[in-house]
């Protein structure tokens, strides 16, 4: 049981996507112009990730190693189609606002990365815990980034105006440049925090880990794909 809790909580801070482990950047940047969109996107990813982890770990002994990536993609794609249909039925305006990024959940590296790095090697219960934790972490991060950009760029949070009147929103923050700059600053902030914490523990601050491809869980996948060919 403790290990299940550990698998769940690691997604909430130690391996928090996309701030600690830089994964799934496209939806992170694209849909976080408002907090509500970020929350919606996060919830969709949470749903797909948890179920895909569960199904893949249940089938991990049946799926042949050589075609596993194709199998993971089919499972993820079926779940994404289910999410698309559900969103069309119940939250149509959100579906329209997220636009092309709903079908693109299937190529989100978090899904394939967790399938390859975790679900294909662990049992069903830990995999569900891992999916829930990572998905919740992703939802929190996206909602946070969305709320930050909405506040700075539009002067509202979840559509509610911020209380201080003298605040002049910079519309730039809800546009593309704001997304890149906000995320860059948050990642730098995370690095600064990590260095501070490791100094307090008396360790030598390590180099920031979120250096591109190396931290991407899909990197593992790319490397094996390269080797097999």
């Amino acid at each position: 049981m403790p290990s299940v809790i550990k698998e769940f909580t690691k997604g909430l801070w130690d391996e928090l996507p996309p701030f600690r482990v830089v994964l799934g950047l496209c939806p992170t940047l694209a849909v976080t112009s408002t907090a509500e969109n970020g929350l919606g996107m996060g919830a969709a990813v949470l749903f797909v990730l948890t179920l895909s982890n569960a199904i893949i770990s249940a089938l991990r002994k049946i799926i042949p190693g050589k075609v596993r990536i194709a199998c993971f993609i089919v499972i993820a794609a079926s779940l994404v189609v289910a999410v698309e249909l559900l969103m069309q039925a119940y939250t149509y305006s959100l579906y329209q606002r997220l636009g092309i990024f709903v079908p693109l959940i299937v190529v989100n590296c978090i899904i394939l990365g967790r399938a390859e790095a975790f679900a294909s090697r662990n049992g069903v219960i830990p995999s569900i815990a891992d999916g829930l934790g990572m998905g919740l972490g992703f939802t929190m991060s996206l909602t946070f980034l969305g709320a930050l950009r909405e506040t700075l760029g539009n002067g509202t949070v979840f559509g509610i105006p911020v209380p201080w009147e003298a605040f002049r929103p910079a519309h730039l923050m809800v546009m593309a440049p704001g997304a890149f700059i906000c995320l860059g600053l948050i990642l730098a902030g995370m690095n600064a925090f990590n260095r501070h914490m490791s100094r307090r523990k008396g360790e030598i601050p390590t180099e920031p880990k979120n250096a591109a491809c190396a931290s991407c869980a899909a990197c593992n996948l790319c490397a094996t794909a390269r080797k097999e060919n």
Partner: protein
Amino acid sequence: MEYLMLFISAIFINNIVLVQYLGTCPFMGTSKSTDVAIGMGAAVIFVMLMAVAFTWPLQHYVLTPYGIGYLQTIVFILVIASLVQFVELFLKKVIPPLHASLGLFLPLITTNCAVMGVAIMVQRGEYPFFKALLFSLATGLGFLIALVIISSIRERLDISPVPAVFRGIPVALITAGVMSLVFLAFQGMAA
């Protein structure tokens, strides 16, 4: 004239990475050196063209006539994934030198949302076939241009005194933000 406008708009005004946020993962992951960036960009252009050339007829002659449009996502990703595998095998057998320079990037492209994104955008925009091909070519070129620019900036950043906490991805993201600001200026051209 319409086609020229489409071409320029897909490269600059609606640049796939800097304005539409698609393909940001490879944009950050493969932009450390210019050589790698050029290889990745070329591979993306190639696969994007092939993907649209295959998914467009599928959508118009299979999915739409039989009323199974909701399967679009699953069909497209399967086509793109197998296409990437096929292209890799084909290049390896037929044009080994090209495989040596592009082969490394091909597996990466399966999870590149820019390729899948263009295939879906073409359908949502209801482009005719040749317009769709032109659009995907221009989008790929836009990706290549953005990737080459940021990789040459990052090569310089490597030898610049960047504060330690900003090193790596954070400063690259902020650079991308500034580039995106520049590309935003192109939107004035369209008006």
